[in-house]
């Protein structure tokens, strides 16, 4: 049996029919073809499946799709809407903070949520914000550098535009 679900993702409204035991992760990938959200551990430990729910990062493998009704979901696809990379994405590319790329969408969304709340984080704050996002390739140092560099760029762009 399927249940009706109205899902708001990246500003679009989708009317779907889903099985109740499907996670938000599965529905994003399999029903909406938003495959930027990655499927890793399915236990809330790795962060590959991170999406924003009303701006807050969560592991989408642990949320039932039906539970997402009424909330605004943001996936990695929204960050480069219009074809331009977000400053965080550019910083990751430029600083070599991406190797295989599996953790990257989750890393970037967690970092994005941090910068929304705290535009000039310290290194320690960046590390704490990314505790739930594991990377098996980079050793994290370049990721932290990229987030700090993007924060600086975004903050100075902000000042410039005022």
């Amino acid at each position, binding site marked *: *049996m399927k*249940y009706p679900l109205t899902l708001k993702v990246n500003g679009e409204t989708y009317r779907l029919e889903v*099985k*109740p*035991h*499907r*996670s938000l992760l599965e529905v994003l990938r399999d029903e909406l073809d938003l495959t930027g959200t990655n499927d890793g551990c*399915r*236990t*809330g*430990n790795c*962060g590959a499946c*991170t999406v924003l*729910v009303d701006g*807050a*990062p*969560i*592991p989408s*493998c*642990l*949320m*039932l799709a*039906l*539970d997402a*009704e009424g909330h605004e979901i943001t996936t990695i696809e929204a960050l480069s809407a219009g074809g331009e990379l977000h400053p965080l994405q550019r910083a990751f590319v430029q600083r070599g903070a991406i190797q295989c790329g599996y953790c990257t969408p989750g890393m970037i969304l*967690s970092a994005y*949520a941090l910068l929304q709340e705290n535009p000039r984080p310290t290194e320690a704050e960046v590390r*704490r*914000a990314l*505790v*739930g*996002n594991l990377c098996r390739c980079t050793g994290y140092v370049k990721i932290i550098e990229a987030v700090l560099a993007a924060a600086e760029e975004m903050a100075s762009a902000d000042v410039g535009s005022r």
Partner: protein
Amino acid sequence: MRFFEYYAPKTLDEAIQLLVRHGEGAYPLAGGTDLVTKARYGHLRPRVIVNLKRIPGLNDIAPEEDGGLRLGALVTLAEIARSLLMGERYPLLAQTARKMGSVLIRNLATVGGNLCNAAPSADMAPPLIALGAEAVIVGPRGERRVRLEKFFHGPGQTELRHGELLTAIRLPPPRPRTRGVYLKHIYRQAMDIAIVGVAVLLQFDEQEAIAEDARIVLGAVAPTPLRVPEAESVLIGAPLTEDRRLEAARRAARAARPIDDTYSSAWYRREMVGVLTRRALEHLVSHSPER
């Protein structure tokens, strides 16, 4: 995961009726960080899921007339960590929430889910018990209140009978000159289940020389959170000398009833109860940085 029926009732009454009607096999859903994982790996086979998140009034942090606080069962760990009211009145709880999971987990996980899941390692239990919290339980026969100390019956077992929900935690008014700390021993910096958790709360006299009251509650070293009155009593009414602090730590270690598992041996857990209790007391007495 296997198929289950799903309901998202808008009132508490409706939720309770659904749970009663569907009997065993019907589970309330809060943040889902424990429940969804268990259902996915077959540790639980829910036939019916009743989502509590659409019920208004379960996720407030509300000051009460007596100066205490009502903490809704669906308040997330992230909200506890960030709440100004919490930070001001019960900094111990805000501090504990920050030691749990990751940002991602804290945004979903609720305090009520942590308690109802009743893992011996649940981090919220020791500090809440130390603070004298009460569980507010609502079921088919109305509301009842139970001291949180009596809420846990064993791993995964609580005071809740089928059809009953934990709706809130009631905290008594914060007491003056009281400081608390929760030390959680894990093998890495974050994102791990407590090998040992120790909550210590001291109420000092006017001169800050003597404790008028003391609470020591241990996590992850018994089937349920464990309060240690015989360690508390050494600390009350006399100067908090190093000797007394060590004696309290020894008694706490002796009271622990740990088991061997994949995280730790029982022997190591007991040793660490002593170490953490000593460190917690040093920290509270000397204002030294937490270790």
